[in-house]
């Protein structure tokens, strides 16, 4: 039986990390907010590092509701886009070097976004994960949840719909 040897671990990691970095670092607003992404295989976790400029209520103090919404939206868009390109860069159809050079895939466009505030966002780091509940050719539905100290006690959750980018034939 002819088996191809598995790729060396550093090759796999380098490719995936480079693809993620290209996707995230291309968006100025994500840098402005100080959001980064941790990756375990294809699973992404958004990390929002607390900074004073994220405060919405200086008396409490609490994270601005708009920051929480933005964090969930960024996590949803990046997670969706990541899932959308995963197959292509894993198979080599999408060149990671071209990605890193700025030849990025078009991002999904938000159609609507609903956020529920469950408890006050404390002045400390926050984490978020998104689940793609429907990934169609044109439309996608995504749910996202953010937590701080305890994952079972989210401080906000969101549901969003996106218009997917047209599949670029040059990537095929």
């Amino acid at each position, binding site marked *: 039986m002819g088996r191809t040897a598995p790729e060396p671990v550093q090759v796999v990691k380098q490719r995936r990390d480079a693809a993620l970095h290209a996707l995230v670092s291309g*968006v100025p607003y994500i840098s402005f907010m100080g959001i980064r992404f941790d990756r375990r295989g294809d699973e992404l976790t958004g990390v929002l590092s607390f900074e004073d400029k994220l405060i919405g209520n200086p008396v409490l103090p609490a994270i601005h509701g708009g*920051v929480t919404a933005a964090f969930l939206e960024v996590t949803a868009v990046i997670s969706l886009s990541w899932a959308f390109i995963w197959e292509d860069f894993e198979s080599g159809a999408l060149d990671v070097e071209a990605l890193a050079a700025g030849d990025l895939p078009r991002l999904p466009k*938000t159609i609507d976004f609903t956020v529920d505030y469950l408890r006050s966002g404390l002045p400390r780091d926050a984490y978020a994960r998104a689940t793609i509940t429907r990934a169609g050719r044109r439309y996608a539905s995504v749910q996202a949840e953010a937590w701080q100290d305890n994952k079972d006690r989210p401080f906000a959750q969101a549901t969003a719909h996106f218009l997917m980018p047209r599949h670029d034939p040059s990537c095929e």
Partner: protein
Amino acid sequence: MTADKADIARQFIQTIPHATALGMEIIAIDDGMAEIMMPYDDRFIGDPETRVIHGGAVSALMDTCGGAAVMSHPDAPAGTATIDLRIDYMRAATPEQAITARAEVYHITRSVAFVRATACDEDSDRPVATATGAFTVEGH
């Protein structure tokens, strides 16, 4: 609404670090209505190809504007917090143009304020986004 209440709401909004970070400026605030402008800034770009502002910054603007409208309402004695907010993105905002949100409290009870908001760029006939939200009424 008394001038005092408008001033208190205005001062409170201006002390919000994130509103300041996004360069928000209060255009008008009165009796359950608020209008806030957010200038265009390259740091807020969400799509590097089209240079369109990220939806997250628009959410922050809508949320701040909704909260300001609630705080300025004569039946809202003190602070407020967002319960939920839904934003519909109707079109991409034009790059290099400021976005202005206008929010109004269309119903208020002892506990909850219901808010509608619209965001426009320089073309005020075609909104960029609309929002509806529920906010707490605190201090009763």
